[in-house]
């Protein structure tokens, strides 16, 4: 069995199982801790609208904070967009998603994906450097923060190498790429990559909590 066969066969299978199992476990386990019902009389508001509003509004910082977090805000956007485009609109990736989800969507030309992947990699490295040097980030960071960056960085780098056939035989590079994705999927539920799932409930509950007090979250 070659590296690629393992990575995209049993490796991927176990990784997907652990990913699904872990994500649902963690999400359900957190939500099911339940919270006391807020019995205070809310101001006039629509709870669902407020929750969904926060899901959207928290994508941009409030005015007073804009300047202080400009770097993180901009890099955050560039990073996520570049990542999503690279992951979701590369034709070979879509074939994988199609095999899992049962439906597909249009892809972008490979040259665009190459550019977004390189941008994403560059931004992630910049964010890694910032985490290691910025006083606050360096101080608060733990192993999870670095592991999570690396398990995302490696698929990006190996993906670019595999795509450009740089530094080894294609199937070896692809094997390493898929294997690194396996590792990422396995780590996902246990580290802070889980934020990708938790963002929605977290913002939603903030939106409803602030909304009932008549405050835009």
């Amino acid at each position: 069995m070659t590296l690629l066969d393992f990575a995209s066969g049993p490796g991927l299978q176990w990784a997907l199982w652990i990913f699904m199992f872990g994500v649902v476990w963690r999400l359900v386990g957190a939500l099911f801790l339940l919270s006391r019902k807020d019995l205070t009389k809310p101001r006039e508001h629509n709870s669902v609208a407020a929750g969904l509003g926060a899901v959207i509004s928290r994508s941009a910082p409030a005015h007073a904070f804009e300047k202080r977090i400009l770097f993180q805000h901009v890099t955050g956007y560039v990073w996520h967009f570049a990542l999503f485009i690279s992951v979701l609109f590369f034709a070979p990736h879509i074939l994988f998603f199609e095999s899992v989800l049962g439906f597909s969507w249009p892809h972008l030309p490979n040259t665009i994906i190459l550019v977004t992947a390189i941008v994403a990699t560059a931004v992630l490295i910049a964010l890694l450097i910032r985490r290691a040097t910025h006083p606050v980030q360096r101080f608060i960071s733990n192993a999870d923060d670095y592991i999570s960056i690396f398990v995302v960085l490696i698929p990006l780098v190996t993906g670019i190498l595999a795509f450009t056939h740089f530094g080894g035989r294609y199937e070896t590079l692809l094997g390493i790429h898929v294997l690194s994705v396996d590792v990422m999927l396995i780590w996902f539920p246990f580290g802070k990559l889980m934020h990708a799932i938790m963002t929605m409930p977290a913002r939603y509950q903030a939106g409803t909590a602030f909304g009932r007090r008549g405050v835009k979250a």
Partner: protein
Amino acid sequence: MNTEAMSLQDFRALLQKLSAGAPGQDMTDEERVRRAKKGFMQKLNGHRAVDLDSCLQCGMCAEACHFYEATQNEKYAPVYKFRPLRRFYRREMSPLRWFYRPFTRDITVADLKEWQHLIYDACTGCGRCDMICPMGIKISASIRVMRHGLAAAGYVPDEMRVIRNEQRDQNKLFGVGVEQLKALVDKLGAQGVNIPLDREQADVLLFTTAVEVLLFPDTFAATARILNKAGADWTIRSDAFEAANVGIITGDDPTMKLAIRRIVDKAKACSVKTVLIPESGHAYQTIRWEGATEMGGPLPFETLSMPEFIAGEIQAGRLNLNAQSNGASVTYHDPCRLSRKGGVMQQPRDVLAALGLDVRETPANRRENYCCGGGCGEYVLENAADLRQKAFEIKRREFEDTGADAVVTSCANCRINLMIGAENSDWQTPVTSLVETVAASLAD
């Protein structure tokens, strides 16, 4: 109107002596840790779990914190302030606790000591960080759980412990009890301010605070004059007049519930329609936004802050004001518990505009407003005086930016802290109360 009040200097001297009266605490280290964990566990729920599981450790919250901004000390990053809670959650409550446990350090007494400073001295629970978090994490809610655990473990700072005990055991604060209130009512009565004390039934039940009685009797008088002017059917009860709640400030749940119950029970007994909270942000937050939940059911009255009440009365046409036309400018300082935690942001501005004042906004305002620097009772902590003063400098810059003639706010705590900061730095711009500003313009 100028009722004789305790001077700011005297009050500060009183605060300095507070900790001397703190009773000793006899608790083993193990007991403290055990109690802290139990305290954390009692308050950890699904909302906090989602919050703790969402954190990206991006550190943006530091950029919202006045203490971090003033000191650039990374320890004051809000995310760091609830670190022990996250450790506890990961070890004990998280769905992944079996996975996290081997990698997550247990809480120690050393941690609790360190976080006493971070949670009480270096955090006013103002929740400005809640507004910046890209994940929508309510950091201040986790800080409250931290306070709950620290309080259970006996880590409430001495000054706060003294007033907490005083409120819990004697139903007094800063020595202000029934006699002091009655004396003030008498004095004001002699000055022509009619205060319908201790009526059995009324539409509106007014509360006040010990700080108002001691330091700001003018505010109390102004409140009474506004109520009278508006023709309200109101009363204030000498057996339950204290709106402040040291329980919520310290994180001591039983005391918080006790203080809420005193208010709710009295309001029910008097069959009031409205409970009117004086200029105290945390008191409003406690009754308006926690009361029903803490009491286990809806409350049979509405709870209003002073800005809400006044704005409502003006709108209803019951309160006529002499609009000033001298072009005086003011800036409004949003108390955190009224604004981002209470939803009272437009009303005070409407009131000030109705007075004909030129209302100027600080660069950060409303839900994004900077904390006064000593909110949530933090101003009583002597250890944190330097830290507070540094944070005050941010406020001062913001105020100066507006060029306003005066600062108006609607929270006695904010006002005290701003006044102390101004006094320390010899800053001359007056810091006044919304209620007093309104009362000064009551039309005959």
